[in-house]
């Protein structure tokens, strides 16, 4: 069965978010009262799995093996539809 899994990769607290800071500065220069921007990466993954749990398990493993670096990033995932 096909499942759609949304993976959200965020920087851990305290890690410098150069992209977010640059965007924040730029938006401020454009005149918006913006104090903080955090960059987040989202992957939407279609995976074949036997159950929702199996889909979660597979993508969890993929996150550990490739998609997230635990030194600087946290990840969360949600199975969107079955």
């Amino acid at each position, binding site marked *: 069965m096909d499942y759609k899994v949304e993976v959200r990769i965020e920087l*851990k607290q*305290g*890690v*410098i978010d*150069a*992209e977010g*800071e*640059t965007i924040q500065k730029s938006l401020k220069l454009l005149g918006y009262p913006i104090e903080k921007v955090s960059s987040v990466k989202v992957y939407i993954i279609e995976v074949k799995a036997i159950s929702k749990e199996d889909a979660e398990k597979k993508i969890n493993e993929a996150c*550990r*093996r*490739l*998609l997230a*670096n*635990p*030194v*600087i990033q946290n990840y969360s995932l949600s199975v969107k539809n079955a």
Partner: protein
Amino acid sequence: MGCRIGEGMKMRVCVLFMEGTNCEDETRRAFEQIGLEAELVHLKQLTGDVIPELRRNLGDYSVLMIPGGWSAGDYVRAGAIFAARIKSKLREDIKDFIEDGKLVLGVCNGFQVLTELGLLPAFEGISETPEAALTNNANGRFQCRPVYLKHTGKCRFTEKIGEDNVLQIPVAHAEGRFTFGENDEKYLEKLIENEQIVFRYCRADGSDALGEFPWNPNGSLYDIAGICNPEKNVLGMMPHPERVVDGIQQADWTRKKKGRGDGRIFFESIRECLKRGF
């Protein structure tokens, strides 16, 4: 740890490339210029995903060099995809290679690959997940220009460079900020204690960069430009020594007219180490 590369054994360099690496040719040339035999080897030639005639065995080489570039488009994180592909099929081969005391080098994207692979800093041997990260430059921009580097390490194959020697070597990266994330303080202490820091960004006169731009081009922790493993036979560095092998390649060549580039001594040092068979 003793290196088992003895007399009579061929000292061949495997310059590993895949889709998106782009420094393999000048890297091979740098090794060849100082008299080492270097071969460009595609990742698939080592993993066996090619016709038999093209297959190569990592164990036949003395040096594994991962060159710069943007492997797999630098998607996900720089070096992450190259690392995951190596890990899935060559993990044991690389472990044996390192345990045999052979040399593993990574420049720029190669350093990112070694870090993602858990081969650096490898405090307790090769780690399952990365222990450090080379992430976006603090200034948010790609930096492509010469920097000054101080050789601070006890790495066995950079010995010829001499302690505290300053080299002018170019960098070209957007993700070169070395960090341990929330463990910066704790692990930095460990790196220093183990004498794993091989190169640090510095000012032109060799004094500390103190994290200041432009001397430190990316905001790297403790001005770290290159580190090795505790056993000193795996080295990763962001700057590109292969780009300044000849004097004419130095940024200040027209003024200084040096016959040799500052990167040459790096390769000569590797050659000496191999000849010594440390």
